């Protein structure tokens, strides 16, 4: 049980920023990394903005919204309490991120983000007040959860290499369904500080634009952290696709994983 920090703000939009600043400060003190801190800030912003807009209909009067932060076991917990009419955001249908532009409604994304950004969200109605608790895993706990969590089977195999490097072994067709799995796999590696990612493509039969996009996103992220995404063992069909979109100029590509690793160890 860590120490508890508390803030109450008047239920007005211009006050939300103070809640954000408060959460950023406490989350940083709890050793969350920059990305997790951002996620907490955004989840709190979206939660409180929703309460003020929909719960109080912009007329919060003298009502206060209370934010309590604490760490418990492996989690950083943020509890947000308000006295607007009972509303459980978790019962609301989330928008679909794959929806095309013409049918998209501009709004409705707040709750979606809260759930996506946090590891767990729970709602309670306590003493005629809404109580939403947002949980973010603390850094030390994150890799463990990634390995043992329910999502474990949705990742491609990986292998930790020396220091800040890891090998990733995607397989099959990388289309819009499976690219998410590759994205998750790569993101977890990057989160764990494996900024040198050796992606062995020997088992990849096909790659769609969604798969290419995931590789580029990981490449940008890795480069931003002084690492790289290095590819090896591309099947001829994949090479063709890469050449078509000019990716052969973007990525370092090696005939096999050993060659990729050897080239890298020479450089460092």
């Amino acid at each position, binding site marked *: 049980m860590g120490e508890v920090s508390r803030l109450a703000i008047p239920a007005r*939009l*211009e006050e*939300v*920023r103070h809640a*954000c600043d408060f959460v950023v400060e406490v989350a940083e003190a709890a050793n969350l990394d*920059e*990305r997790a801190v*951002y996620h907490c*800030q*955004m989840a709190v*912003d*979206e939660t409180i*903005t929703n309460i003020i*807009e929909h719960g109080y209909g912009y007329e919060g009067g003298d009502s206060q919204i209370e934010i309590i932060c604490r760490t418990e076991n492996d989690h950083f917990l943020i509890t947000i309490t308000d006295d607007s009419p009972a509303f459980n955001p978790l019962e609301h249908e989330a928008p*679909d*991120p*794959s*929806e*095309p*532009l*013409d049918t*998209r409604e*501009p*709004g409705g*994304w*707040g709750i*979606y*983000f809260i759930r*996506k*950004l946090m590891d767990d969200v729970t709602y309670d109605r306590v003493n005629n007040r809404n109580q939403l608790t947002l949980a973010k895993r603390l850094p030390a706990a994150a890799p463990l959860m990634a390995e043992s969590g329910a999502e474990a089977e949705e990742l491609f195999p990986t292998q930790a290499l020396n220091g800040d490097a890891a090998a990733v072994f995607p397989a099959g067709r990388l289309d819009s369904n499976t690219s998410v799995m590759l994205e998750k796999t790569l993101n977890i590696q990057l989160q764990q500080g494996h900024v040198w990612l050796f992606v062995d493509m020997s088992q990849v039969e096909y790659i769609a634009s969604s798969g290419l*996009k995931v590789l580029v*996103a990981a490449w*940008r*992220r890795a480069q*931003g952290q002084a690492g790289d995404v290095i590819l090896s063992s591309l099947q001829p069909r994949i090479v063709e696709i890469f050449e078509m979109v000019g990716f052969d100029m973007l990525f370092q590509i090696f005939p096999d994983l050993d060659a990729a690793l050897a080239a890298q160890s020479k450089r460092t």
Partner: protein
Amino acid sequence: MVMEINTSEMKRVQLFEVIGRIDSTNAAELGSALDRSVDEGRNNLVLDLGGVEYMSSAGLREMVRILKRVKRGGGDLRIANPSDRVKEVLELAGLDSIFEIYPTQVEAVGSF
């Protein structure tokens, strides 16, 4: 001032550079700045988010609204230089497949 918007009129493109924080208190202000350009018939817009340290869904909402508007006018709203965090948020919302996103302002402007 929490958010600052600098507008430059270029040959084929209207460029908006945003600095600061975009949230529910000022997203509408960003929206109206973009609206004014569309009202004048300028539908090719570049939004440089290089200086944006934080954006909530209120900002995304305005971006989607404007994108729909300029597309109807045969134009486009393209994004330049989002931070990793802002880019992640765009990806989470599936907006990376709806917006063209460029790593630099030059590339975004040059894409028109």
